[in-house]
């Protein structure tokens, strides 16, 4: 482990200081309001010292549902865990709150495909033309969850969450290989791909989105997160392992 205090991105160097030193100007005028940023304005306030201390949080208030029913949540946890299971490296998707991440994503603009071209008509596409699906992501996902249970009951006479890990893998493999029934005319592998993508995002996206609990997803792969600078490390022929930092560390700057 390198000594953090020798790093350019160390906590003692704020973005504010950094930008001050960088001389980002045009004709002597500071560009873009970077220095007087939203986050820099109240840095010197002293009122907090006299304010009553907030009670320490023992639970994560973001770990609550916006979208799923409890059953859907548990099913998502179980399926995501098989995509990215707990192992010797560390926690799996369940412990990393990937299902909370997925819940939050499907509850928002992305879940209703707000930035996609959704005008019809929807024709059958060639493999090279991208997906042509009218069903919104939030609906495809919940329909896919229901299909997981249907296929589990058909194959093993039990719901997905009650199956052994190997049986769950068998069900997911069937979905990934289009060997499960279509979901309202959408191939089962399309749902599987959505589940896989969301799981990977849920374990590796910034914790601000609800997953990657305590940055443990990053720590497993020795990813240092969103530091301001790697100029000191980039030429080192030895691997330099740094503690992860997330976007919340940028808020004080």
């Amino acid at each position, binding site marked *: 482990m390198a000594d953090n205090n020798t790093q*350019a991105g160390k906590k003692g160097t704020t973005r504010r200081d*950094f*930008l001050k*030193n*960088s*001389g*980002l*100007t*045009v*004709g002597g005028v500071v*560009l*873009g*309001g*970077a220095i007087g*940023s939203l*986050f820099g304005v109240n840095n010197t306030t002293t009122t907090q010292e006299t304010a009553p201390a907030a009670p320490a949080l023992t639970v994560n208030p973001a770990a609550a549902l916006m979208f799923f029913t409890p059953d859907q949540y548990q099913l998502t946890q179980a399926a995501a865990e098989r*995509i*990215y299971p707990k*192992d010797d490296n560390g926690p*799996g998707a369940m412990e990393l709150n990937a299902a909370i991440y997925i819940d939050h994503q499907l509850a928002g603009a992305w879940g209703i*495909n*707000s*930035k*996609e*071209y*959704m*005008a019809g008509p929807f*024709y059958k*596409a*060639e*493999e*090279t*033309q*991208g*997906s042509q*699906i009218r069903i919104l992501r939030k609906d495809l996902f919940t329909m896919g969850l229901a299909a997981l249970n249907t296929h589990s009951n058909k194959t093993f006479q039990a719901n997905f969450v009650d199956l052994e890990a190997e049986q769950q*893998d068998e069900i*997911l493999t069937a979905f*990934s290989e289009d060997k499960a029934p279509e979901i309202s005319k959408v191939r089962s592998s399309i749902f599987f791909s959505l589940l*896989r993508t969301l799981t*990977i*995002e849920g374990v*590796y*996206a*910034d914790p601000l989105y609800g997953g990657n609990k305590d940055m443990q997803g990053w720590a497993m*792969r*020795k*990813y240092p997160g969103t*530091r*301001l*600078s*790697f*100029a000191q*490390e*980039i*030429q*080192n022929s030895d691997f*330099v392992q740094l503690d992860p930092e997330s*976007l919340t560390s940028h808020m004080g*700057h």
Partner: protein
Amino acid sequence: MATKLPKVPVVVVGMGWAGGIVSAELTKAGISVVGLERGKDRNTSDYMMAHDELRYQHREELMQDLSKETITSRNDEKTRALPMRDYGTFIVGDGVGGAGSHWNGQTYRFLPYDFEIKTMTEERYGPDKISADMPLQDWGITYDEIEPYYDTFEKMAGISGETVEGFGYGVRSNPYPTGPMLKTPIMELFETATKNLGYSPYILPSGNLSEAYENPDGISRAACQYCAYCENFGCEYGAKADPAVTVIPVAKQTGNLDLRTHSNVIEILNDGSKATGVIYVDTITGEEFEQPAEVVVLASYVYNNVRLLLNAGLGKPYNSANQTGSIGKNYCYQVSSASSMLFFEDKEFNLYGGAGALGIEIPDLVGDAFDHSDLNFLHGAGIRVTQYGNRPIANNVVPAGTPAWGAEFKAASIKYANSYFPVKSQGASMPHRYNYLDLDPEYKDAYGKPLLRMTFNYTDQDRELVKYISKVTHKIAEEIGADIIQTNEEQGDFNVNKDTNTHNTGGVIMGADPETSAVNSYMQMWDAENVFVVGASAFPHNSAFNPTGTLGALSYRAAEGIQRFLKDGGSLV
């Protein structure tokens, strides 16, 4: 009914590199410019939370909202084109800065061969070397003529690099304004291996500043911190050259730029030989405005430059059946499938760090630097190792045969997270008769205007190039030495949902002949002399390099031409 506004000398459509450069040059010369940008204004404070892989890379924060507008695509004329409903392959910028905000910063010059490719190919190999289905043509400008504009662009942007001599590279009038970027351990591995094999590696030219730099406009910018958030992201330090921290503030400071954001141009008013102005929609309120102008400058992305002209009936649409017309012709891309992936069992590199234009490349196999007499393709590829920074959602590369999910996937993706890199390539894209852009007959945008239809696939030329280049990437990978080497030797079909790059070119191509090109070497339309169409849309083919350096040079040339036109009128050539 559109509200008619007072006439202005120049209206610029799109405020990325092309629009920003033209606006800066004209406003500095005292000319009033109205800049219309469909997206928002930007400066570095917009990028304060830029180190967010999900938001910027996977949710495409800086990109065009496809719910409003997209393209349709098909591989050939027999297929019905379908809309690109979400992003997969290229990413189209939006807002002030455009693609110049989300780019990586790799800033090459094209080769002297590129600008005279038809003449030089026929001289060396005879007239039969170029197939009848390849509408290859000279650009109507030589390297020596464009060189001063490259120099101006590089000084404005502060490009960092080292001079390459020989291999058909053009002679530089000045060295790069700043020195090359740092050399990392994986770049050193490539350097040693390629030198052992007799190649001549060089650090690739970068728009991420290697050192603090003040440009001729008085813009000072900080050095790159190798933070790994370039492509898809804006740079909060201003180290990455971006119109929003270079030419746009300069234009604003003159007081001559009237920048109107959230202003989406939907129509060019014209009588077939002259434009009188544009119609735009305020995307916030839905109000329509008519902005009359002496000169109309189209400086949006490749696709909208073409689409606006086709929807306006300006210029002659390209017809693949008889190969007449020019608007939509010679749509090209980039041929980059040849690559070799190296996996290491017991080496870890600091791959979490990087920069968009951090890399090393060999010049030996680009252009006509090697003999093509016995080869079934023209031009070549830059073979390179880059270090952009491996962000964790996007980078989970595992050796072939590893499952794509589950216990084995997790273990392998973590094991190799800091222990793999590719020797990859970026190949030139030659035009083809059946690769072109036109209007879609069925799908419309949010304003009821037809979407642009892309008909494109990789050609035999591309597949041959990939086969040849992949042998070299494999040879270099073996010389570096790795525990696992996997080489991709095949160029598949173009797939709109497969990640490649955003080097789309052509459609409003330049040339010396009005019969075969749409604009002259000043980006002035042959068919409407007060319309200038600026951008990579002007490239008659795409070279083996990232397009922005050449786009920037052509933008400076266009700005010069527009000033001459405002003074003297008429054709500039």
